């Protein structure tokens, strides 16, 4: 999911930097609205470290090697911080591991960062899930969707960017075929990523629910109070935390 230097035209690199700059600005603004932006920093930094390590690990799946992207997971747990964490993680990977490239940093941050923001949105949809389900199941379902759709979106953006930028000299049909094979090979990883996100989110819900409270966009008292009324003893202080985190 990391486009190396020289694989896309310079115009695309520049547009990629422009767009990722705009998104970074927007995310920073959202983060600044927070009464205490530093409160979420440990979580964001820890997940940036996890992103840096996990997405560097290549899973050999002949004839290619793939890696997870953790887009949905970061989006679900970090919200707007996710894009910033991904940007930092990608910068370190390009600099120290030669994974991706500095000229394509903007484009790569879009490939992984946009699905993270979409995953953030998808994770929010849990409030629309049937009330009959327990909050833990609802979290699990929305977490799975965030992770799986995040991965699918990342693969789709990656492939569509490259499929239209096959340079002269390369056999376009072969390259297209190779890209589609790569996309199909990511199928199992989509499930893995979804399950992993669902497990982590439900685990956090059980052990440290305050880590998930940063997700709340607009505290709608109706559902927020509904969450408090859930028989979870640790949730007693969540309402104020939810408000703070927006």
């Amino acid at each position, binding site marked *: 999911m990391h*486009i*190396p*230097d*020289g*694989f896309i035209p310079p115009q695309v690199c520049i547009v990629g930097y422009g767009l990722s700059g705009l998104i970074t600005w927007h995310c920073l603004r959202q983060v600044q609205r927070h009464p205490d932006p*530093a409160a979420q*920093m*440990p979580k964001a*930094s*820890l997940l*940036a*470290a996890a992103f*840096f*390590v996990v997405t*560097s690990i*290549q899973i*050999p799946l002949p*004839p*290619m*090697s793939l890696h997870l992207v953790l887009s949905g997971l970061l989006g679900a747990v970090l919200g707007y911080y996710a894009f910033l964490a991904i940007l*930092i993680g990608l910068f*370190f990977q390009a*600099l*120290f*591991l*030669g*994974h991706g490239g500095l000229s394509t940093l903007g484009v790569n941050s879009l490939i992984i960062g946009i699905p993270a923001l979409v995953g953030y949105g998808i994770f929010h949809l849990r409030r629309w899930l049937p009330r009959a389900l327990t909050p833990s199941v609802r979290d699990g379902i929305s977490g799975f969707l965030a992770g799986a759709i995040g991965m699918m979106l990342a693969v789709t953006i*990656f*492939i569509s960017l*490259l499929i239209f930028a096959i*340079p*002269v*000299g*390369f*056999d376009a049909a*072969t*390259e297209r075929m*190779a*890209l589609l*094979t*790569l996309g199909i090979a990511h199928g199992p990883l989509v499930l893995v990523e979804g399950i992993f996100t669902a497990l982590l989110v439900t685990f956090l819900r059980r052990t440290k629910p305050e880590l998930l409270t940063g997700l709340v966009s607009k505290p709608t008292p109706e559902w927020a109070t509904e969450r408090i009324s859930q028989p979870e003893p640790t949730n007693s202080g969540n309402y104020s935390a939810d408000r703070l985190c927006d």
Partner: protein
Amino acid sequence: MVAPAGKSLTGFKHLKLSNQSCLSAVVNSLGWVLLCCQPGLSHGAIATVTRTFSVQASYSSGEPIAMAQVVVYSPENPDQPWTTGQTNEAGEFDFSPDMVGDWEVVIRQAGHGTTVNVPVSTTAIAPIDPQPTDSPTATLVSTSDPLTTSPLQRWVSAGAALWGLIGTVLFFSRGK
């Protein structure tokens, strides 16, 4: 993502021998005169030595990039491919440049790959990295590996980046 390129020096010897044996009786004398005047035409020997560059493409994990597309650009025309081809099972591809200058080899498979510059000179090729390679005759000419540093250095720098992130966690989670 990494394609170290190794060079092997191979000499080809083309021996071109022209043979003038069946001259008709009519032009026999004329032919004989010609043979006498231009002895070079009859038994000239031409030796051409070409240098073949062998490119080896592998992922940073060490796994070869097999059956990847390769495009070679000559120094004269960097826009149009000079030749195209495919790496073999071992991720290798050979080409014989015909002019001096900086050649560019692009290896690509499913959006993954790399670009390597191959400096070609008529005299000696200065090896840029004296690291010993597998074959004793092959000299490393060029590599697209951005990390010509040792693996230790690489891990230390990656570890430093990681520690920076963990340090940030600790800094921001310290007690108020």
